[in-house]
């Protein structure tokens, strides 16, 4: 019996790659380094959807996710000279998601310090889109899904979201989060199990 990885849903990143031309990240990054605005715009467009969704799932609010997204790209531009494409697994994508994860963690830590609870933001999030009358059932289902993801422990949610939105390999996810491979795999397994339980 053989189950192939191709049976799994494709990540958003792969779909975007197909849409946004054949240039590699390294090529666009090189041009961006030389100050080419178009290359920068193209990279932002390439990763916008997976990155903004990842940040949204981490922080629970689209305006906050937007802000974190902007901070992430500012950080990319600030440190672009230091990034070496040849070092580390996952290349630019892993670096980008690592920066985004750090930005979200910083926000989370600072929110915790200020007691403006991260959980509070998560509670606010479902009420952002007011439900149209005929879609109440669908909206309730969506809220249930969002809650299920949000209720996952932080470490488990990060692995699941990174895997789903970035399409990074587990080895690269472990590097990005700074944990051993076995830990990343264990968190993924637990996250999947809990999500399944919650949705049943």
């Amino acid at each position, binding site marked *: 019996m053989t189950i192939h990885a191709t049976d799994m*849903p494709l990540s958003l990143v792969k779909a975007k790659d197909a849409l946004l031309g054949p240039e590699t990240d390294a090529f666009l990054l090189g041009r961006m380094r030389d100050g080419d*605005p178009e290359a920068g715009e193209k990279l932002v467009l390439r990763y916008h959807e997976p990155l903004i*969704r990842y940040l949204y799932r981490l922080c629970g609010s689209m305006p906050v996710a937007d802000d974190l997204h902007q901070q992430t790209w500012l950080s990319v531009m600030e440190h672009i000279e230091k990034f070496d494409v040849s070092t580390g697994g996952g290349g630019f994508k892993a670096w980008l998601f690592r920066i985004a994860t750090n930005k979200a963690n910083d926000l989370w830590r600072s929110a915790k310090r200020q007691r403006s609870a991260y959980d509070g933001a998560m509670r606010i999030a479902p009420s952002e889109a007011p439900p149209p009358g005929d879609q109440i059932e669908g909206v309730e289902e969506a809220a249930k899904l969002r809650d299920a993801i949000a209720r996952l422990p932080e470490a488990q949610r990060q692995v699941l979201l990174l895997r789903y939105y970035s399409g990074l390999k587990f080895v690269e996810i472990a590097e990005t989060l700074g944990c051993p491979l076995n830990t990343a795999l264990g968190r993924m397994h637990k996250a999947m199990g809990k999500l399944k339980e919650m949705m049943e």
Partner: protein
Amino acid sequence: MNTSLLHQLENNEAILLMYLANELPAQDRNEVEHMLERDGQLRLELAEIQQAYTGSYGVMRQADETTPPTSPFSAARAVGDVLRARQSDMPSVDDHEERRHVHWIAYPIAAAAALAIGMFLWWQTARDDMMKPQPVMVTDRGYDGRGWGRWGGPGGGPWGPPPGMDGIDQDDMQILRAFDPVIRDPGSEAQRQVAAIRFLDQSLQ
């Protein structure tokens, strides 16, 4: 070099997740497939993990469908604007080349100008010195032959005698040496002048 990941993985869940994600090296993958063929329990575990994997991806996808992301264009434009602003702050390649060229040529020009000014000043000073009237000799000491040293005359330094002393030969030197006692001879000023005139008159005859 052993590239096997399998033996680094701590449990079946980890192994099966890596297998499902197709992230095991070929050799490890074959080994897992042999294990799955032999072990029915492991096959059940794999099916459960795949179900959970697919189920969680389904949850994520559905959650995303109800939450449209923000427009990507404002973010892209913001990044593009930052890069454009940096570009306008930075000198263009042509400007840079031009500046490099100017820098390259400026140093030799400055050095040549400094040298020319230095030489002009030296020439001015030397010319002023040449134009000054130079004493033929120090009259209170007489001319004893050592005096040439002051100007670097014959047998002296490289600059030669001062203007007006060129062409003096040994006979003239003898006359000048003989003239010394006349000048040094004590007596009244008038007497010394008369003695000197007489002496010169005799010498010229």
